[in-house]
Structures are given as structure tokens and as C-alpha cells.
């Protein structure tokens, strides 16, 4: 493990994703990636009494499926890193309560998926854990009621608004060779472009995404051609175009290899405004779908850049602008392991 350039960690020793799983709500299950998810719920309550409990159930199920696929019991995991959008990261803390694993709670808003994955890879590569479990979740209704309004309140949302993904993703990181190798991670800086509209978070996050991607290229001396796919977390229809333009202005044309998880998870006719967002957006698309594109040989190398709007309702009400952050992780297809399943 070493640092290259200013912000990028390179994992020379083999660090692998040994298994991953995703659990989602009804709209995500109905979307174009529905068949790639491990657990699909038919209603937003997921069989629980409240939405918060539903979100907890999603993360618990993602973790359970991930461990089951890896054939590893919770006792054999050395570290659990997780985070979510609820105040006090309630979902992660309550899921960790049920696990016999030392726990680090991380918050990076919707960048948490790659934040936890990058941190887990570094800790495993550094020998501080043999196996580290990462997880993140979001729920449309818990996010709506915490960050916006009651779910049934009649407010007209603009086209720039995004739709929080209901779901959870989990992955097990370890030294034992698996199907997916973690090659590098670029830790982003907090970038505040000065935007104040919480209903246009794509435009608020795009500069952070572009900054991390550009830094990644410069640190590693790579270019967009070195990746089969560069995917951002939840910039959606508005922010993804801005990020692409910002990168073009810096001399990096990513248009042939670029996509956004918020655009991949829903069909255009699903009434989700500008697209999907939330911690689960990049998590379920990466752990549910993108890893399979690697193991099936469609792609060889991905750069997943999870984007987070570090939104505080109090700060927004005090007319403060919205800071944003993005963390990127390079995931490669490793040599096929006959015994492991995706």
C-alpha cells in the first residue's frame, strides 16, 4: 500500500471484494437493474412497522446475504464500517448492535459507499484487519421526512430534484483472492461551489465529483481511456452533464466511458425527477450490478466515484451553501476463482 500523488492510495498487495449483496425497495426492484439485486421488497415498509425499521432491515439483509455468499460468519470478520443518512447514523449503529464485530461508523452522506470501501481496503492492506465488512443504506421515506417534508405533503418539486433510493448494499473486503480486486482509491476534498438549493443537489455535487476524478487521473497518470466505465454516485440528469463538462474543460473527455448510478437505477418513465440519489444509489448499483459486469467479463476496470452532498437542514435554513465531497475507488476483475459465486 502506498500513496501516489496527493490524494490517491494504491493497493499493490492483493485486496479483494470477496462478496457483495444488495437489498432494495419496490421502485428499484421494478427498475432496469431489478434482476441484479439479492433482496427485492414489494412495499416501502419491507414488512416492518416504521420506515426507519424498514431501512434497518434492508441493511441487515444486505449484510446477511453478503456474509452468506462469502461463506464467512460474522465472528470471522475483524471490522465493520458503515454509515447512512439518518441522524446519528441510526441505521448503521443499530445494525452494528446485532453484530459481534468492532465497528467504525463513517459519514460521507451519499459518498459513504466508497468512503467505507476505500477505508476498509486501506485497513486490510495495512494489516489491521484480515476481513472488513462495509455497508450503507438509504430509504426514500426516512430521507424525505428528515431532510425535506412529510412524505404526503403536497409540494411541487422541480425537475432538478432527485429521488432517494430505497436500499442497502454490503461488501466483504479481505486478502483472500476473490473475483474483484481493489486497485486504488482517491479520497476527495470537500468542495463548495456556492449553491444553496437542496432540490438541485446534482449541480452542488458535480464540482466535487469532477475534482476527485481529475485528481485521480493526475495522481495515477491515467486517462479516461484506461477505464471501461467511470461512474458517479448520484449526480443524476442535471449534475452528470455538468461533471462531464467540468472534466472536458480540464482536458479529460470522459463522454465515452461515463455514466451515473442515479441514471442507471430507474427507468426514465418512473417519475423520479432528475434521477436517483442517496447512500444506497451508488451502493446497490455497484454491489448489485457493476460487480457482475466485471465477473461476467463485460468490463475489466471501473472507477466508481460516490458523490455526497453534505447537507445540513439547519445550515440551509441559515442560508449557507451546500458543501459536497466525492471518493473514488478502482475495482478490477481479478482472475476467476472457481469456488466463489458473484
Amino acid at each position: 500500500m502506498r500513496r501516489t500523488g496527493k490524494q490517491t492510495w494504491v493497493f499493490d498487495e492483493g485486496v479483494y471484494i470477496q462478496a457483495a449483496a444488495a437489498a432494495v425497495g419496490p421502485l428499484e426492484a421494478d427498475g432496469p437493474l431489478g434482476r441484479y439485486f439479492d433482496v427485492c421488497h414489494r412495499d416501502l415498509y419491507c414488512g416492518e412497522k416504521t420506515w426507519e425499521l424498514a431501512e434497518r432491515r434492508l441493511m441487515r439483509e444486505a449484510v446477511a446475504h453478503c456474509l452468506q455468499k462469502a461463506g464467512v460468519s460474522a465472528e470471522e470478520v475483524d471490522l465493520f464500517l458503515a454509515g447512512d443518512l439518518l441522524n446519528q447514523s441510526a441505521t448503521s449503529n443499530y445494525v452494528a448492535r446485532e453484530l459481534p464485530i468492532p465497528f467504525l461508523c463513517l459519514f460521507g452522506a451519499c459518498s459513504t459507499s466508497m468512503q467505507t470501501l476505500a477505508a476498509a481496503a486501506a485497513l486490510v492492506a495495512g494489516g489491521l484487519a484480515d476481513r472488513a465488512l462495509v455497508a450503507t443504506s438509504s430509504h426514500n421515506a426516512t430521507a424525505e421526512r428528515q431532510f425535506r417534508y412529510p412524505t404526503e405533503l403536497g409540494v411541487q418539486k422541480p425537475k432538478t430534484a432527485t429521488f432517494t433510493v430505497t436500499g442497502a448494499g454490503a461488501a466483504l473486503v479481505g486478502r483472500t483472492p476473490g473475483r474483484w480486486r481493489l486497485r486504488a482509491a482517491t479520497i476527495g476534498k470537500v468542495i463548495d461551489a456556492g449553491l444553496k438549493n437542496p432540490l438541485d443537489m446534482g449541480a452542488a455535487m458535480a464540482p466535487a465529483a469532477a475534482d476527485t476524478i481529475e485528481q485521480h487521473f493526475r495522481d495515477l497518470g491515467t486517462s479516461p481511456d484506461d477505464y471501461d466505465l467511470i461512474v458517479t454516485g448520484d449526480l443524476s440528469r442535471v449534475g452528470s452533464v455538468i461533471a462531464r463538462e467540468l472534466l472536458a474543460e480540464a482536458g479529460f473527455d470522459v463522454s465515452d466511458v461515463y455514466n451515473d448510478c442515479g441514471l442507471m437505477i430507474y427507468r426514465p418513465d418512473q417519475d423520479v425527477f432528475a434521477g436517483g440519489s442517496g447512500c444506497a444509489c451508488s451502493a446497490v448499483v455497484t454491489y448489485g450490478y457493476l460487480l457482475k459486469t466485471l465477473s461476467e467479463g463485460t468490463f475489466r476496470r471501473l472507477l466508481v466515484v460516490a458523490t455526497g452532498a453534505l447537507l445540513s437542514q439547519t445550515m440551509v435554513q441559515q442560508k449557507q451553501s451546500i458543501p459536497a465531497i466525492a471518493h473514488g475507488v478502482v475495482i478490477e476483475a481479478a482472475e476467476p476463482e472457481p469456488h466463489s459465486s458473484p
Partner: protein
Amino acid sequence: MGLRTDYLREVKAFQPSPPYAANAAKAFLAGGALCALAQWLAEWHGRLVVASPLAAQLWAAAVMAGLAIALTAVGKYDDFSQFAGAGATMLITGLANALASAAIEHRSEGWTAGVAGQMLKVGGAAIIYGIIAAYALGLCWLWL
């Protein structure tokens, strides 16, 4: 020129602007339809049940509020609002939706801290300024 030189200005080209004309037309039609319905209720009620015109209007307002609460409860009022915009805030229906949606939302935290404690979370501001405005107008009327 470019996003990197002046982001706040240049980014506007990438942000879709709201369809103001279409929104205004939809708000006018939906809000007008709601008002017409309320007016029709008031007059229809007045003809069926013998009541003063004022009582008929109050009854119509209560029916409209009940209708809005019912639509909120079945999860349809927010869809209507997405279409109607400001038209859905007409009359008492917008306020009824604000109170009902907050009450439903916080049922999971119990009847006291949740439903009762949070019911005015969104609609409270409208009620406070409504009372202040009514009081101020009342004073004006008294003095004139």
C-alpha cells in the same frame, strides 16, 4: 468562459428552468376547479338544507378539508400537488394536507410527541400568520 471560471453563473445553462407558463395554467385550472367545487358545494348545500349562506360556506370548507385529508391519507394529494402546484394550496385544502401529512408522518413516534407534537410542523406558520393577519385586519376594520 466556462464552468471553471464562474460556476454559479455558467451552471444556470445546465439547470432546466421550470415551465412557468404551463405551471401557471395548471395552477389556474386546478385551483379554479377546486374553488368552483367549493362554491357549488356551498350553494347546493344551501338549497338542500335550510341554512344561512355563512353556515353553508363553513360546511363547504369542512367538506373540502375532509376531502383533502382523505386524499392525503390514501397518498394521492401529493400527486395532485405535483400537477397543480400553487393551485393545490387554494382554499383550506392546502392547510388540511399540511396538517394531515405531518400527523400521518409522525404517527410512528406516538400520539403525543408524534401526531400532536408534530402536526403543526409545516402548517403552523400559515396558522400563526393567518391569525396575525386576521387580527390586524380586524383592528383596521374597527378603526375605520
